[in-house]
């Protein structure tokens, strides 16, 4: 069994077959759901950006507080001040979208640079970079963020800077591992023998052709991380402040009514968090299984 799968694995690695030929249906479902969520998030972000909302998110209607979903005029119901839930959920995306992209960019950029240095340049940098990644990994992320908040100010861009930097070690070790794997193949040696400039080898042959999918996967997982951090921090009261909606502070402010049995004001944003993070996780893992061939069932 093992030998057969090993051989077939090697063949498929070098075959010209496009990757979608032998894709698992489950992975396809994961990716499909993930892409749906990404589309919804990006679409809602753009809607929120141009204020194309069903209602004004700040419009208080004390006659219609905590309406259940499906109430006429309020598709997702209203919160504890009668504000339209759907509009607030859409606007809440503003709180994490751009900062999340910043965190992803930082993680991918510095992770790639360090990974290439450690993997391609080898020994000289390896120890130093290993020390750096271990150092970053020593801090619980939320504690580090609280430290930065205490030192500077509770600004989402500072927070996402920390989120990005603490994600650097993961990207670094993945890129490093990939390059060490690629080095066993002959094409890099051939490149060097042919006199291909190092820049072309690293940027084109290694990063573009072989690490592209890895970076995309890390980007989707990074977005899930960013959403989790933003919602956690605005739940803790360090992010976006009321009345500006963010999913985290919506859960928090709605929680006062939770104990009275009025679940909806905090449940709606909590479900939004749940489905969105689930989407990014499934997208990342599905892509990982499809593009990197890591189905391990």
């Amino acid at each position: 069994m093992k030998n057969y799968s090993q051989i077939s694995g090697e063949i498929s690695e070098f075959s010209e077959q496009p990757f979608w030929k032998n894709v698992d249906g489950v992975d396809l479902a994961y990716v499909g759901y993930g892409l749906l969520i990404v589309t919804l998030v990006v679409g809602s972000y753009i809607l929120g950006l141009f204020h194309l909302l069903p209602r004004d998110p700040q419009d208080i209607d004390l006659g219609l507080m905590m309406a259940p979903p499906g109430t006429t005029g309020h598709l997702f119901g209203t919160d504890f001040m009668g504000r339209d839930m759907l509009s607030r959920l859409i606007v809440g995306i503003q709180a994490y979208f751009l900062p999340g992209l910043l965190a992803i960019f930082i993680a991918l950029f510095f992770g790639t640079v360090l990974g290439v240095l450690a993997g391609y340049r080898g020994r000289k940098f390896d120890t130093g970079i290993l020390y750096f990644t271990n150092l970053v990994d020593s801090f619980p992320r939320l504690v580090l963020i609280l430290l930065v908040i205490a030192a500077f100010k509770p600004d989402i861009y500072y927070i996402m800077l920390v989120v990005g930097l603490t994600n650097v070690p993961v990207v670094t070790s993945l890129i490093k591992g990939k390059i060490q794997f690629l080095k066993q193949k002959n094409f890099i040696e051939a490149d060097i023998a042919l006199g291909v400039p190092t820049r072309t080898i690293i940027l084109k042959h290694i990063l573009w052709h072989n690490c592209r999918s890895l970076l995309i996967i890390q980007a989707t997982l990074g977005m899930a991380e960013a959403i989790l951090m933003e919602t956690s921090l605005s739940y803790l009261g360090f992010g976006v402040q009321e009345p500006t909606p963010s999913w985290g502070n919506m859960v928090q402010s709605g929680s006062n009514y939770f104990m009275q049995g009025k679940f909806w004001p905090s449940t709606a944003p909590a479900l939004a968090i749940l489905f969105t993070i689930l989407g990014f996780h499934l997208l990342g893992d599905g892509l990982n299984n499809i593009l990197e061939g890591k189905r391990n069932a």
Partner: protein
Amino acid sequence: MKSSAIRPIALVLSRELMITGLLLLGVSFVVFIILFASPGDPFSVLLEGQLSTGEVRAGVREAMGVPRSWTKQYLSWLGGMLTGNFGTSIRMGLPVLPEVLRVGLNTLILTIGSLIITLLIAVPIALYSAVHGTDKISWPLTMFSYVISALPVFWLGYIVIYFFTHKLGLFPLAFGFSSAGQKYRWLYQFLPIFVLGVGNGTISEVIRFLRQEMGRVMAEDYIRTARAKGASVWRHSFKEGLLIPVTEIVASKIPFILGGAVIVEQVFNWPGMGRMAWQAAQDRDYPVIMGIAILAAVLVRMGSLFQRVVYVLVNPRASKE
């Protein structure tokens, strides 16, 4: 323990302790740099509303015996920490270290307890799907683990609190650590542990990692040999397929769980390090949050030290790397 096993462990332990020391030195430096780079120092709080010219500031610094250059500041702070002096909390006016250690114990209980819960859920699912592959039972379980991992932990906390206070009426409405009824006190303390264990967001990752490692070991030749000669497959696969992966993933997930503890302690009013860190961040109480960051890093490092020791115990060759 066999005597031949002691030497490699001593070797690894001394080396790892050195690395841990170096890393903690780096941690203290990072913490110091963050606060050093921050706008406004404790002196600007002291001098608030006064004419704070450069001369006045320098005078105050001089009077309080604070060294001028940053290297000297760092060294004196580091020296203080090594002798157990983490400074004095601005808000509470108490020495930081005893306060943080006092609540740190609660956090330790919470973290270790929730790690056990996480493993109790993850290990059976991982083992089942490693052995049986994807089937009617393991597929829904995997899906369930994904959903659980995406669940916001604070909301899960509310559901659990609501269920136990309102539906079952086991606890008084006013939430506070000491106000719980004596009879269900243990349950009241167990709930946050349970919530953090389920909702720390690592379950699906833990399952994936364990399943992959177990699957890899199951495909090894020595397992086939064991199976062929009728020996216990479980006994041969346990160390490499379960023990090592579990310690590895636990060590690498401690930071996440400590982070989750900040939120769970907030939801449940659990008097731990996370709540103290939250309060300190609100009050900009630097000394407290510095102490907590460093102690948290110590915890994380201890976790990976433990992992290395287990690894070498199982695989003594690794000590020669």
